[in-house]
């Protein structure tokens, strides 16, 4: 295997892990107005959003923030924070997540751990997504 090929292959691995990221991120209100809510991904695919999750998110959000919360909520996984640790950077998303997980102290960015990621993904299957950051 040539050196160039190996380097490209390794870079490709990093590129592939994030191909599921959304191309556009509509707000919660915009998605609620759609009959069959969906988002378009970077790879051109369509990702269906479960309307029941949108309704559930409405229970955890302040009425002023409905037009500001962008879907999907991005959970950032970065190995520099340690294994099993993830970050929710957006303030409104962090507020919603901390309310859902019943975290008493809201800090920005919000750090969550493996069990909390599982819990979050279990309920908000289509309205959250995980991003892998390599620095």
């Amino acid at each position, binding site marked *: 295997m040539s050196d160039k090929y190996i*380097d490209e292959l*390794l870079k490709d691995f990093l590129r592939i892990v994030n*191909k599921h990221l959304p191309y556009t991120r509509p707000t919660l209100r915009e998605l609620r107005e759609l009959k069959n809510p969906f988002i378009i991904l970077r790879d051109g*695919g369509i990702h269906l959003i479960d309307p029941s999750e949108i309704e559930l998110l409405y229970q955890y959000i302040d009425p002023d923030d409905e037009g500001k919360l962008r879907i999907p909520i991005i959970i950032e996984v970065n190995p520099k924070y340690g294994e099993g640790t993830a970050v929710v950077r957006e303030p409104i998303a962090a507020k919603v997540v901390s309310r859902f997980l019943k975290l008493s102290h809201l800090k920005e960015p919000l750090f969550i751990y493996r069990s909390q990621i599982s819990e979050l993904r279990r309920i908000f299957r*289509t309205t959250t997504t995980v991003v892998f950051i390599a620095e």
Partner: protein
Amino acid sequence: MSTSLQRVRPTKIELIKLRRRLELARKVHKILRERLTILINEFFTRLREAVELRKAVYSKLTKVYLDTLILYGAYGENLFDHMKGLTSKPMTAVVGLENIMGVKTHSAIVSKPSYTEEQIIPYIQTYRAQVVELLSNIVNLGRADKAVESLGKEIVRTKRKVNALEYYFIPAIERTVRYLRMKFEEREREEKARMKRVKQVLTRRKAL
């Protein structure tokens, strides 16, 4: 574990390239391992969901089947035509794709039907609610099963990549880097010895 070394020219440029590649490989390994862990968690979540849904489907299926027989026996085949007539908006399922961290799987959104209220046949509302719930559970079970299958395949693929990096690729680069360092040290020692020898020869010549 493989003991092979990569075939490289023993130059400083090669060493720099290899160290860069090692750094990149370690980074990729960390990311892929994190992805693997999250995929496994996701797999178990979906598996649990599928098991729960399967249990629910089996229990409801028996009940709905028995109820259908009773209603059919009591009201005959016109019952279902009557029920169809009362349905103003039928139950629909929109099937599309769902992307779970790069794993494409089928997804479905079930919309509940609506009816015109008419209380002619007793028990019909409860029966209809049970049927709707059963159908919704069946669609969700299909979705969960498909997700489990797709996630399982992706886990195998990712695990193979992680293992290849962990047990073959990274150790091979590390060994090659170590070999090159030893080679350079060896050259340095040789150079020192040569210089000492030259100095000795020059001093001897001066003395003459």
